[in-house]
Each structure stands twice: as C-alpha cells, then as structure tokens.
C-alpha cells in the first residue's frame, strides 16, 4: 500500500476556464494505491435545452469560489472516510456538450464515495459563487439562469442526515 500521507487523502479544488480531463484526475487519485475500493465521478455538462442555447456564460467570484468549494470539500472530508478527491469548476463561455464541473471521490467503500460526491455537488450548487447566463440560438439576449428550489431542497437533505 502506497501511503501518500495525509494530503493524498485531501480533496483538491481548482477553478479554471480550461477543460478538465476526468480520466486523468481519476488515474492520479488511484495511481499506486491498493486501498481504494470505490471511485465516484460526477461530470456536469452544458445542455442546449432543446437547441435553445448556443452557450452558457459562467461568471464567478474569484477567490471566494475556491474558498467556498474548499469549505464544502473540508465538510465532506469530515463527514466521510475518504481517500482523496478532486473538484474542478470551469468559468467563462461554455458550449453545449462541454464540461462544466467535475467531482471525483475515492474511498474504500462505495457508500461513502457516493454520499460524498453527491453532497459536494448539492452544496456546490447552492453555495459556490457561480452564475450562469444563457446565450440564445436566435441571437437574442439570454436570461440569467434562475436558481431552482430543487437544488436548495437537495442541499437541505444533508442537514437532517
């Protein structure tokens, strides 16, 4: 068993415009490790909403975006027994079919990996300072995407748990 030390088990957080490579992130997390039994990967992609959109523009609050996702990550590390993870959120103009967000969680067991990954996404959705503006296919000015009550409810679930 390769022991990468305490830091190897921490969740890495990155905010970037560039695309990410989910497979490379998973490979880096599991490389040389024989204690990882479960890896859950969530990829969020830009949808075209039935050909309505040509892009989403993601605005973010630099500095706070990293800090807030790191706080969510620290909470996940605290709640579950994890062996590492990655959270990457893109900003800027993103076309339908492109990646927006990546969360990878490695653990010995699947229940912790699933729970931590879903928790990260639910919290990130409602707490990370990102806002999406639509670019419309018809050339018109798009709206800011409205926050969904379902996302608040999804995040609230974890308080009762």
């Amino acid at each position, binding site marked *: 068993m390769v022991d990468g030390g305490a830091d190897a088990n921490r969740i890495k957080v990155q905010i970037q415009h560039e695309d990410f490579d989910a497979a490379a992130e998973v490979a880096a997390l599991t490389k040389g490790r024989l204690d990882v039994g479960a890896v859950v990967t969530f990829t969020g992609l830009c949808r075209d909403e039935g050909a309505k959109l040509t892009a989403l523009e993601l605005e973010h*609050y630099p500095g706070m975006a990293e800090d807030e996702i790191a706080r969510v990550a620290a909470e996940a590390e605290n709640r579950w027994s994890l062996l590492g993870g990655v959270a990457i959120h893109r900003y800027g103009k993103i076309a339908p079919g492109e990646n927006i967000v990546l969360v990878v969680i490695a653990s010995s067991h699947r229940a912790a990996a699933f729970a931590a990954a879903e928790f990260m996404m639910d919290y990130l959705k409602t707490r990370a300072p990102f806002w999406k503006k639509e670019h419309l296919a018809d050339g018109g000015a798009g709206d800011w995407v409205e926050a969904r009550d379902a996302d608040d409810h999804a995040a609230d679930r974890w308080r009762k748990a």
Partner: protein
Amino acid sequence: MAPELKLSYFAWVRERVGKSDETLNPPADVRTIADLIAWLSSRGEEYAYAFDNPTVIRAAMDRKHVKQDSAIEGAREIAFFPPMTGG
C-alpha cells in the same frame, strides 16, 4: 472618517448597478448588510433597481456567505449577488 469598504457585484446585480466593484465609505449608522442594502438603494436608481427585491439578494463578507442581519463592522469587502447557479 469612516473606513473604506470594497463592494463587489455579480451577475444581474452587477448588470443593474452598472459596475463590478467600487470602494465606498458608508456612514456610521450602516451597521448590517440590510442597512448597507438600504443605504445603497438610496444612492441612485441603478442601486434601487438592483436591490429592488432585497429578499433574493445574497451577500458575502470577506468571501464568506453572510445573512442580511450580519454586522459589517471590520469588513474589508462585501459582495452582493443573486442566488448561485453553478454546478
């Protein structure tokens, strides 16, 4: 002299205010986030428009989420924005 405070605006709050940030010196009786929203709203139409419905406005103080009844004393940077839609 009142201390300088950096204000940042994001998404449609930024669009309505017409700038992404500015540095202001709020008067001493502006003690909470809610006070700050009320004071800003009195400064011009663009602010009144941005803070039209204060209940939907979210705030962060020095890059941490805060409620509108939070005291702003000691803050260096306060940001206003709509509910987040990342992920």
